[in-house]
């Protein structure tokens, strides 16, 4: 540190600006997002998990395709199988969403953020926009790469899917959309709970631990809960072959969207009401 005199220059001639607009908040959140190391690691992991599992599982399926029963062959989904890595990458991206807000609280940075931009919903909206754009981009990149990698293996058995086939393009784009939704789900849970550990645990529980457990619930209500539960609904958009007893691709995605939106709305209400 160099010694400084402590003298203050005359009031700086700052150009008249628009102040703390939403666009300004988005630029700020963009800079914040990409100036911490965890972001790049999470984005790289999302890509590696999605594509890596596509290669692994597609290779495995294509080598054992000869031994598969006729029934299994009939329900084989070349597109859905190539996107199987989303099961893991959805967690990575959701945790990134959690961290985007929870680290503001764990570091105390939230007070500086809200002092600079006292309109808190503007901050939350800016975070959601940056996160959605980045997650959608990495989701689409990962899913298209995973799709092509998967089809390389399937092509050897002539069971590959093509983007021009019915529903296939929708499913691959849908994989990217699902990644974005998971990120926003994480942001929403993080906004409500504020603590990193609690929010990460809750997000993992809600996205992958609880959904399969809902199958244990009895009766028609149990079936309904299973169908509508977070990833059980949201993941349908990445499939071409319809899973029995599940919601349709767009219906499922709409349900999952409504779910994270509801949690984010709750978070927004709490964000405005609570002391920072």
């Amino acid at each position: 540190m160099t010694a400084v005199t402590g003298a203050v220059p005359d009031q700086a001639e700052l150009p008249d600006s628009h102040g703390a607009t939403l666009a300004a908040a988005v630029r700020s959140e963009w800079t914040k997002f990409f100036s911490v190391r965890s972001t790049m690691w999470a984005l790289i992991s999302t890509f590696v998990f999605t594509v890596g599992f596509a290669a692994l599982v597609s290779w495995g399926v294509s080598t054992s395709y000869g031994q598969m029963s006729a029934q299994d062959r009939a329900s084989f989904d070349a597109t859905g199988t190539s996107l199987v890595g989303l099961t893991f990458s959805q967690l990575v991206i959701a945790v990134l969403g959690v961290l985007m807000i929870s680290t503001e609280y764990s570091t105390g940075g939230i007070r500086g953020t809200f002092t600079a931009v006292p309109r808190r919903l503007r901050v939350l909206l800016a975070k959601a926009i940056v996160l959605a754009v980045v997650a959608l981009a990495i989701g689409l990149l990962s899913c298209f790469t995973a799709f092509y990698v998967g089809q390389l293996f399937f092509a050897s058995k002539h069971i590959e899917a093509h983007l021009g086939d019915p529903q296939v393009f929708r499913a691959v784009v849908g994989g990217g959309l699902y990644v974005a939704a998971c990120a926003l789900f994480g942001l929403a849970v993080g906004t409500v709970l504020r603590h990193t550990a609690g929010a990460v645990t809750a997000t993992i529980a809600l996205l992958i631990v609880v959904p399969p457990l809902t199958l244990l619930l009895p009766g028609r209500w149990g079936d309904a809960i299973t169908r509508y539960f977070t990833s059980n609904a949201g993941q349908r958009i990445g499939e071409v072959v319809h899973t029995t007893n599940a919601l349709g691709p767009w219906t499922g995605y709409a349900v999952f969207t409504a779910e994270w939106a509801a949690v984010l709305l709750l978070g927004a209400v709490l964000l405005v009401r609570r002391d920072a």
Partner: protein
Amino acid sequence: MIEARGLTKMFGDKKAVDELSFIVHPGMVTGFLGPNGAGKSTTMRLILGLDRPTDGVALINGRPYAQATAPMRQVGAVLDAKDVHGGRSARAHLRALAQSNSLPASRVDDVLDLTGMTEVASKRIKGFSLGMSQRVGIAAAMLGDPEILMFDEPVNGLDPEGIVWIRTFMRSLAARGRTVFVSSHLMSEMALTADHLIVIGRGRLLADTSTDDFISENSAARVRVRSPQQQDLARVLAERGAVVDRVEGYLELSGLRTEEVGDLAAEHQLTIHELFQQRSSLEDAFMELTGESVEYHAGSAPHAPAPPVSAQQ
């Protein structure tokens, strides 16, 4: 200008801030003084809209801060220097803040220069000392070159050079017409920095006065005298108009000088064993004022030597 009107904040059933009303004017340094736990930081958070008041309002230039369109042009605040994501470089942290208010990127270089942080700007904040973090906080507060500056205990963690620097810095801001509102629990520090004092204890306003008045009112010299004929001496002194108290085996009085007390005793042929002038320090005056309002007393050690205040000069 900062204005608090009946500002009240409850945490559970505990009143952290209790119907505080005051005005902080531009062109001077206003010290916000009170013992630890008096509610200074909470009051600052209420002013910035970070906490919601239970009752009352805090206004910045007549409006709640949350309604500001260009917040960083209006207010710069350094609350807790460690309230920042350590994983970011100082430059990235400042750039993000500048962007949030559409401030030109050149301001980042300006404030890094102002605080002497240019050389370490690309390092991650995590590795900074408390003093360096304070400078990052001050740099952030100065980004919008605001009219109003708020500092919460700014000298904490600073080395003597840093303390002199921030004192000069605050005084020069005030000299240029800015509103400077700075909290401290150190009376001696405020005596050197502040033109005006707002003193609180247990969330309540105890004094709102100029520093000069506070000093002259509260550091009046008192005389102590010990005599085997304490009763008679007290009567004689009281007849001469002195206000006499009995303290620790002495008579303590104001209104008469030591010479007058000695002469008076001789005149009445009263024996004196001890006679001296007791000048209460500002710190004493502050402790007397806030004594009943201190949240946590450190046992009963009335004569414990005051801890040395670093870098007085």
